[in-house]
């Protein structure tokens, strides 16, 4: 049984500093990592493989050649093989063009897949769209925000513990299906020396645009419905104003005066 885990190589934004002068991110020295949510998705796949026999995990990513590093981590952590979709023609893809390409790769290279796992979102773009879009393109049932994924012993259904606002729900659906994975209470795995060395001997297949036979108009920037126009940091909020050290009545008066001054209240409201 084949499980495809779609992953993304992202800048490690948890460690990024902001240039105090320009307010922009200091990209100097920022390294890229396997998107943490993708790693949780892989972790669910590895967990399934540890508990069932005959499971093959295929890690799939699209990106520049260095995105192969994200696949390498997947192979070290238990994926069986990797697929790196890389070509200048894929550059500038938005979530739709990315999902379209990944779906086509899965259809062609892993046609017999039973389950697709993705992270719930990537920590760089935070769109949470690619997973659901792949499910739509491949016409699959999808469950999002999973914190636990298990298969029935017949391998025909998937059971998912889904994070919801006030707790969790347990959902089941027939396979094939797509599940996007959240963190839950998972702690990241660490490869062993043995699995690290083994990972380096596992195959990574490279897929170019020409291997897919898709029209160029559906790939990369050309195939994108959206474009990034501008990236900017959110406006900083003004410092709050604290009224303290006054009797309650005086404090209320001071707050009232301030709100009036700022036109939140009309003079006549009292």
């Amino acid at each position: 049984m084949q499980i495809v885990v779609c992953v993304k190589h992202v800048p490690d934004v948890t460690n990024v500093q902001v240039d105090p002068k320009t307010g922009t991110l200091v990209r100097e020295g920022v390294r890229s990592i396997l998107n943490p949510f993708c790693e949780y998705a892989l972790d669910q796949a590895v967990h399934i493989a540890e508990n069932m026999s005959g499971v093959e995990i295929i890690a799939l990513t699209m990106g520049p050649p260095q995105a192969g590093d994200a696949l390498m981590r997947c192979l070290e952590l238990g994926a069986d093989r990797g697929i790196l979709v890389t070509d200048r023609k894929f550059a500038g893809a938005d979530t739709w063009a990315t999902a379209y390409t990944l779906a086509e790769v899965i259809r062609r290279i892993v046609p017999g897949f039973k389950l697709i796992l993705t992270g719930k979102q990537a920590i760089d773009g935070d769109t949470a769209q690619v997973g659901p879009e792949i499910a739509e393109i491949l016409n699959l049932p999808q469950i999002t925000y999973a914190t636990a994924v298990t298969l029935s012993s017949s391998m025909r259904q998937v059971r998912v513990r889904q994070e919801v606002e006030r707790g969790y729900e347990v959902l089941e659906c027939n396979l094939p299906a797509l599940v996007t994975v959240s963190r839950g209470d998972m702690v990241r795995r660490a490869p062993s020396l043995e699995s690290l060395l083994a990972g380096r001997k596992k195959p990574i297949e490279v897929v170019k645009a020409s291997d897919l036979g898709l029209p160029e108009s559906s790939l990369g920037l050309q195939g994108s419905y959206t474009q990034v126009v501008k990236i900017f940091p959110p406006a900083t909020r003004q410092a709050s104003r604290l009224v303290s050290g006054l009797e309650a009545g005086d404090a209320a008066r001071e707050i009232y005066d301030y709100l009036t001054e700022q036109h939140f209240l009309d003079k006549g409201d009292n």
Partner: protein
Amino acid sequence: MPELVPVTHEIHAKPALFAEFQQIRRVEGFENIRSEYPGYLSDESKLASRSADLLFFPKNEAELSTLIREMARQKVPMTFAGARTGLVGGSVPARGAVVSLECFDQVTSIGYDEPYAEWRVVAQASVSLKALGSMLNARHVPSLERTAEPDQKAQYERFKADKVAYFYPPDPTETSATLGGSVVTNASGARTYRYGPTRNWVRSLRVFLANGEYLDVPRGRYFADAQGNFLVHLTSGKVIELTIPDYSLPRTKCTAGFFTEPGMDLIDLFIGSEGVLGVVTQVEVALMREESKLSMVQFVDSDDEAVKLTSRLRQERNLTLDFLEFYSANALSLLRKVQQEAPSSVGMPFLPAEKVSAIFFEMSYDPHGDHQPLELLEKLITECGADPARSWVAYEPRELDRFKVFRHLLPETVNAIIAERKKNIPGLYKLGTDLAVPDEYLADLWHLYQTTCDGLGLEWVAFGHIGNNHIHVNILPRTIEEQQAGLAAYETFARQAVAWSGSVSAEHGIGKIKQKFLRLMYSEDQMAQMKHVKDALDPDGLFNPGDIFPDEVA
């Protein structure tokens, strides 16, 4: 060709600028200090001062110099404090004044030293190791962004443009420690295994003397003469003669007593002197080119297996490890318990369920390069009877950070347990050893620790710098009786470490709480030689009273 400067054993002090004594920021009166600024009366040793009447915050060298002169005139002793992260009470005032150097917090310059082909940072004493690390990482030094000095500006711009990343190798566990504090204590950390202690990275110091004048001491300029003497010329014309002690230091990490060796460099006398000879206000340290790393925790069946693997790893010439650390089986049992109660608090995969010990090490590693070192490592681990599948490996920076947090978790856990027990028995405290011995005695020392602690039925864990034969044994007493038994055991360990040519203090220093052990290591005559150096530079005993030497007044 670098300019050749003749070496000499004579150094001339320089006068500092004057400031208005009354302008120096201060808090007066013990009760005021205790109620408003209690942190200045203690440090990480948890020793607490019962008497300090003045707290000063000099903001520059002129104020510091003026303060020293005024206190000297009034014969008020001064205890100098940095981040107060020391473990032996060095910055806890015995009496008199506490002088916080926290305003000395600027990086002064970054420059490339051509003869030594290395980048160097000049910084004031209170720049923290953490702040220095962040500035180097981001290549952004706020004080140098503002500098108007053309040479400094040019060097800083050159540093920023350098494509290579640099770091400062000494890594004491507590990163809030200051550069100055780490220099006067010759601080160590895990990476001392490869890079040596702080001493190896110090290139120059500015030291204020007890008369308020200062010495600029670069490395490689002032050496003891054939009789072991230095001459310090004060501006008044007075000459201080310093005779260095004639004992030999152990072949281990050592922060017990003043550094000495025939023909020694004067800078080494001040490094590790715990601030009893002078006040360090500025340091120049060297940086090193950063390499990508691989960290690994290898689980083994027993503590003895860990000792065996350590010896094997140390012998392997084709592997260069940055650090080589140890977790005893009882240490991992303690962490396993914490992990079972709250898995996310440990932040690591589950520890093996069965009883295991571990060796934790780091080495240079290029994930895109040659895998031969890893294959060699795998072979070596297998030959020692351990299983490379029972290990954790990390090489991405975020993963390395996670492993680093894990490394610090054990001492924090021990401290939390002791704090909890103290609520019921206030007299209890953790007993943490800091002994190191030469390589050939590692197994013997470990055997002594095990048989003694187990024989006494004590609760204990062991961890730390096994690569330097410097394992920290932490005894967690449950009763006052166990506390006494633990103390007696500690003394036995210290005596034996000395008998095996080791050190009673490998990295924590002596301060106020390990003086008894210092006397196990040095004879009365050798102690007198140290005291002679102290008296020559600080005749009235004004600097850090009660540190290294007993406080004669108290």
